[in-house]
C-alpha cells in the first residue's frame, strides 16, 4: 500500500517567513508533485519532479521553489510567505501507472 506522508497537517506562519513543506513517499516512485487546492479553483500544479535533483515548473510556480535531494522526499519551499499562499497543499507521487497517490495535505495559514 502506497504511503505518502506530509510533515504537518496544519501550519500557521507569518508573512515574510520562509516555509518548508515536506513530503515523503515509501514506494520508490520516480515522479512527485506539489499542488495547491483552493475552493472553486480545484487542484493547481506548482512543481513536479521526475527524478532526484530534477524539477519542472507547473502552472503556478511563482513564489515557490522545490528540492529533491533524495528519491523519496520532495520539499516545497515558500521563500517569503504571503497571505495569498494560504491554502491546502497536496503532495502526490506516481510511477509509470499514471495513477497519482496523494498525501493527506497540509493546511497552511499565512497571517
Amino acid at each position, binding site marked *: 500500500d502506497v504511503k*505518502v506522508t506530509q510533515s504537518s497537517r496544519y501550519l500557521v506562519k507569518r508573512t515574510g517567513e520562509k516555509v518548508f513543506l515536506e513530503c515523503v513517499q515509501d514506494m520508490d516512485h*520516480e*515522479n512527485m*508533485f506539489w*499542488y495547491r487546492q483552493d475552493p*472553486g*479553483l*480545484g*487542484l493547481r*500544479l506548482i512543481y*513536479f519532479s*521526475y527524478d532526484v535533483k530534477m524539477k519542472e515548473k*507547473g502552472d503556478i510556480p511563482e513564489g515557490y521553489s522545490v528540492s529533491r535531494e533524495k528519491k523519496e522526499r520532495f520539499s516545497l519551499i515558500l521563500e517569503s510567505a504571503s497571505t495569498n499562499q494560504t491554502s491546502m497543499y*497536496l503532495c*502526490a507521487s*506516481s510511477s*509509470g*501507472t*499514471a*495513477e*497519482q*497517490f*496523494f*498525501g*493527506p*495535505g497540509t493546511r497552511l495559514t499565512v497571517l
Partner: protein
Amino acid sequence: AQRVTQPEKLLSVFKGAPVELKCNYSYSGSPELFWYVQYSRQRLQLLLRHISRESIKGFTADLNKGETSFHLKKPFAQEEDSAMYYCALILNRDDKIIFGKGTRLHILP
C-alpha cells in the same frame, strides 16, 4: 490547449436518485482519463480510470471521444457518495495530470 471542464461546482441529489457528474475535455490526441474523489477528512484518491472499464462503488464512466466527454454516473445515489469529485486528464504515462476544478456532490436524505 489541454483542458478539463467540470461545469457544475455543486450538485445536490436525493438519495436513491441517479447521479451524473459531467466532465468534458479538450485534447487532440488519445487521452487517458480518470475520476478522483475526496471524501470529508480523507485524502484525494483515484476512483476509476477509463481504460479499466470497471464499476467502482457503483460508479461508471464512459469515454465518448465524439463528444469529448467522460461523465461519471451512478444509478442510485447513496449518502456516502457525498464528496468532492475531480475529473482528470493525463497526456503521457509519466506526465502531469490536468485536473478539472471539481464538483461537490451532496446527497440529500
